[in-house]
């Protein structure tokens, strides 16, 4: 019975969109967040230490 609530949205993204205007660039807050997230994830992927593994023969 909680299924209809589950299948709806917890955060409603409908309604008028929010936009950032910067010079000739206009970008939605949503797209901006996605792009920033991509850059953050990329940087983290490069910087975060990777678990050491035993070499063959060790």
């Amino acid at each position, binding site marked *: 019975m909680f299924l209809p609530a589950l299948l709806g949205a917890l955060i409603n993204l409908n309604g008028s969109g929010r936009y950032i205007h910067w010079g*000739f660039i206009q970008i*939605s807050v949503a797209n901006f967040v996605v792009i920033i997230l991509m850059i953050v994830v990329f940087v983290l992927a490069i910087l975060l230490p990777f678990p050491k593994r035993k070499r063959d023969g060790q």
Partner: protein
Amino acid sequence: MSDDTKKARRFKPDRDVKEWKGAYVPYDILKEAFVAFLAVAVLIVLLAVVFSSPDEPAITLKTWSAVDPVDFAQTAITELDGTSGTASYGPPYNSTPDSSQHIGFFEPEQWFGVHQPIDTAQDFVIGPLRTLPNQPVTQAAVSLYQNASGAQQNAWTTAYEKAVANATDVNGRLHVPAGRYGPVGIMVGSLTDMAQTGGLDGTLLSEGEFYNTNYTKPLLFLADGTYLADKADAQHLSGDQWGMMNETGNYPGQAWLWLYTMWYQVSPMNSSTNGDLEVWVIMMVLSIGLIFLPFIPILRSIPRWTRVYKLIWRRHYRELAGT
């Protein structure tokens, strides 16, 4: 290539690499894929539960003609007199001269020709009106129009276009000031009524058949008006708003189209009548450039010069320095 030829080739660090003869570590490729599969499943379920997805209902000709009958009528008259966006589009819809986009002699739109033929007067106005039963006044008006000379038809449509510019919407009914526009007033009035019943949506789509999945005609009619464009502009979807990247509401859209839509914001593409073709050519060149990047000097050296790789392979370089 013989071994001798290979040996004579100069080593270029941006093109070549000495293959690995060093240590290996155990690695379970299928388990990694399975874990990733589960991780992405969790991610998309979370996103779907939290954010759902947008579904703005489609606009019908019925809605359009009811909410803005003046814009509908102003569009209808341009379909009848051949001045609408679709009527003057050129290929692939019709053969309007000097309408195709081109860059110098390069005019592919013209070369491919008319393959989705549309006669807006017949397909959007006269044809649908002819399907209306038990409307002798409308049928007589259409016959009068069709039997008149080209000059007479032109005089009527020009007069109507002037009059409908001052038309008003009284409780959803179209009120056009009087004028010498002959049968055209009745024709556009009937078409508006037909649209408001939903009949025009059905007739334009079905084209007299039972099944159809080709929405070319109703979409072109809709796009010739300003109602659809105004709604899109309100949602930041217009071309000059970087609209190609955007989605309705606050949903993320197609961020990967950023470069394609960017060219539409810059000169000369943003004001050129050949802007679409110019942007396509630019994007084709850049896409081919990206595919052939390994062959392009300077660009293929950027990874080596920027040294991000020193971070990626820092453990490898540390171990090399230690040995």
